[in-house]
């Protein structure tokens, strides 16, 4: 940090503990005025807790020691009343989940105006108006009409055109990206000096993420707002940050100018984080394809939408609209697309969980799913032949939600064994589950435990064990690594690559994360609004995309600079 620049926010040896459990240890770093500080770390590293400490919004029972200096005051010593003028006034905060950060019962304009009414207008604006200011807080109270006017202007500033999206709209009428713009508008409404963004784009699609990051960058530059950008994704931070803090286990392991930390001077942990972010299997791990395994032909899957009618069918929305592709034995195929493109519906159709409107899904020569002749959708997919069902298994995204919390791991992993024609005996089943757990690196002693006793990465390994226990030939990986930290993700991907090599498994790798798909697939399909817009060899698609949408998608992906040796 250069000496001529004053720190706007500085943490000085901050410790936080909840009860007797220490959460943060000696956190020390500076945020320079008008600059961006990236805070990177894996889950549980304490990065969100650091953000909450800066706002003094720590959970009940937490104690804080050390000094948090902001603009000449020590936030750690201020009383609640003084803090309230700072929160939302001098410091704005942007949360990860735009769905829950907004009140569903209030219009977006009202939610932005609320902060303005609460904190008033900053001195700078008030002087411009030539009106009285409250000497204590340096802000002037604002009337309802003026607040509404300012709110509209702020929404416009956050990229929501007042004509296209009037302030009278409600949150549910907006897309995820638009909601995040509202959250940003709330945060900047009172012209804060500092903006804390905690994983602001994690819940968003890549193209939306690129737009939101561009907006934050623009605000930071034009309004001179200092930005603390917290993310698990090094690449997101790399595009934005002037300075970087790397956290692990409640400690700062690296802090300084981004380039310095990112280059050779970083600690071993930081270097391992960078390596994990770029993980790719050893070349040669992929095998030549065998015969065709899964053939999807002109598949249409829709669901009813609009009001129910007394007579006649309801309108149908075609979530999957004429999709054809195939996966060969032992091949790894990626399917990428943004939310709402139909990839989840396609996955469910492939697994026989929803009926199809038209087209067929054939598997290893047999017909797995087809539209019934009378045009009605097949009921609940319970029509998939048993023998074929065991050939195609799935690993879901959510390592927390995809297991019944009331069953022990043994029973969870054994569940698909139900599909075998001859049900194995109790001891055979146990042996099989134990072997499978060993295979995925969990250890058979896990069988007696419940799922909540495992970490996210361990749970995904157990999910893989559950998928493989019936020896399928195709595994659908539905965002299977998206919820994992980079280092854990690299380990799980390595396991998947190893299993593919040893067992001759084929994968259908569904993901919104292009970098993951790029590293582990042979071919890739790009999906948009229910159709596949581009398909081809992964290297070819990434290097020379043909479709405009693929190019847009690739351009939006934040990239990690190659670290200097």
């Amino acid at each position: 940090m250069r000496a001529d620049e004053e720190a706007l926010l500085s943490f000085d040896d901050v410790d936080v503990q909840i009860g007797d459990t220490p959460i943060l240890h000696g956190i020390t770093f500076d945020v320079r005025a008008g600059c961006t500080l990236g805070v990177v770390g894996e889950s549980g590293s304490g990065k969100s807790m650091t953000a909450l400490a800066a706002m003094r919004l720590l959970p009940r029972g937490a104690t804080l020691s050390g000094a948090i200096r902001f603009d000449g005051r020590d936030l750690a010593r201020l009383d609640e009343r003084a803090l309230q003028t700072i929160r939302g006034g001098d410091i704005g905060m942007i949360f990860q989940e735009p769905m829950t950060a907004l009140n569903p019962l209030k219009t977006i304009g009202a939610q932005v105006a609320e902060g303005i009414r609460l904190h008033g207008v900053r001195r700078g604006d008030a002087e411009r108006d030539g009106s009285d200011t409250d000497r204590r807080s340096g802000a002037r109270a604002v009337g309802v009409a003026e607040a509404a006017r300012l709110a509209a202007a702020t929404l416009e500033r956050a990229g929501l055109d007042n004509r296209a999206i009037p302030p009278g709209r409600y949150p549910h009428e907006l897309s995820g990206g638009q909601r995040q713009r509202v959250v940003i508008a709330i945060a900047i409404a009172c012209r804060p000096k500092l903006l804390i963004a905690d994983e602001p784009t994690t819940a968003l699609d890549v193209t939306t993420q690129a737009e939101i990051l561009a907006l934050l960058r623009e605000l930071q530059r034009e309004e001179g707002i200092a930005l603390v950008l917290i993310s698990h994704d090094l690449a997101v931070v790399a595009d934005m940050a002037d300075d970087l803090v790397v956290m692990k286990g409640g400690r700062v392991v690296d802090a300084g100018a981004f380039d310095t930390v990112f280059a050779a001077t970083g600690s071993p942990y930081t270097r391992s984080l960078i390596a994990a972010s770029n993980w790719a299997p050893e070349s040669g791990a992929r095998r030549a394809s065998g015969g065709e395994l899964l053939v999807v032909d002109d598949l249409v899957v829709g669901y009813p939408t609009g009001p129910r009618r007394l007579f006649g069918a309801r309108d149908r929305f075609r979530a999957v609209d004429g999709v054809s592709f195939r996966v060969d034995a032992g091949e790894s195929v990626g399917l990428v697309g943004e939310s709402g493109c139909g990839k989840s519906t396609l996955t469910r159709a492939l697994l026989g969980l929803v009926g199809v409107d038209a087209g067929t899904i054939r598997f290893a020569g047999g017909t797995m799913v087809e539209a019934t002749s009378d045009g009605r959708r097949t009921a609940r997919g319970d029509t998939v032949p048993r023998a074929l069902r065991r050939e195609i298994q799935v690993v879901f995204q959510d390592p927390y939600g995809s297991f019944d919390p009331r069953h022990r791991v043994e029973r969870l992993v054994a569940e698909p064994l139900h599909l075998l024609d001859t049900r194995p005996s109790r001891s055979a089943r146990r042996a099989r589950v134990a072997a499978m757990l060993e295979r995925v690196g969990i250890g058979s002693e896990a069988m007696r435990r419940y799922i909540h006793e495992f970490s996210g990465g361990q749970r995904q390994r157990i999910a893989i064990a559950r998928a493989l226990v019936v020896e399928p030939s195709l595994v659908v990986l539905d965002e299977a690594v998206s919820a994992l930290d980079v280092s854990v993700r690299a380990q799980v991907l390595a396991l998947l690559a190893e299993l593919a090599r040893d067992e001759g498994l084929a994968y259908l790798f569904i993901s919104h994360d292009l970098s993951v798909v790029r590293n582990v697939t042979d071919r890739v399909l790009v999906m948009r609004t229910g159709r596949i817009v581009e398909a081809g060899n992964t290297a070819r698609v990434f290097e020379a995309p043909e479709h405009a949408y693929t190019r847009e998608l690739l351009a939006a992906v934040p990239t990690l600079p190659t670290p200097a040796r």
Partner: protein
Amino acid sequence: MKLRALLPGSTLVLIVVLAALASFVWTPWDVTRLVIADRLQGPSAAHWFGTDHFGRDILSMLMVGARTSLAVALVAVGIGVGFGVPLGLAAAARRGSLVDEAIMRTNDLVFAFPALLIAIMITAVFGPDAVNAIVAIGIFNVPVFARLVRGAALSLWTREFVLAARVAGKGSLRISLEHILPNLANLLVVQATIQFSLGILAEAGLSYVGLGAQPPTPSWGLMLADSQTLISLAPHVALFPGLAIVSTVLGLNLLGDALRDWLDPRLRHAR
């Protein structure tokens, strides 16, 4: 962890259950013995809880009355759970279908009638009797459980672990029994304790208006009903049946809380 509630909860419930069981073989006094000379006595060494306006021993009546109250509430909750839970599970498993509509609209129909009126109707047709009270209260527990189960099951059906079970080729019956029902257990336990408490109160209410247990069979509700004109003269006649109801309901709620935590492996293993 709420297992702390287990001890007071189970103690209270145990006392009531033991008192009810003991009354089959022994009570301090005979509850059918009327000694007008001893009427409305306060608590004493001979009569711990005093006597009522016929000179009957209140403690003995409470013990015998516990049989009626517990039996009514238990069977009424049993009817509610026994019919309501399968109906709710079926409606959720076939959500949006005719089966679902038929089940839920029938529930609405039952809900639409005031419970007390139906109970009065049933007893008017079949005569006032504790058994009829049980049936009447039980019928009104059915939609309570059916609705609760359907709502909670619907959200469980969208969870990924249920999808995983479907990918594992399990049908809706097996999924309902193996995954949905165990995950509803905590809700059911809590609701069952609430309905149990309401059942005791409902029996008290029906007996109060003379449609529940018939004299000389003692019941807590009947005792309260009899005491109302005497409340200023001998408050203990109302106090002890009231206390019995309150402590049973309290004990059941505490027990329900503890049971709910114990049923959840995540909470059971937490220290």
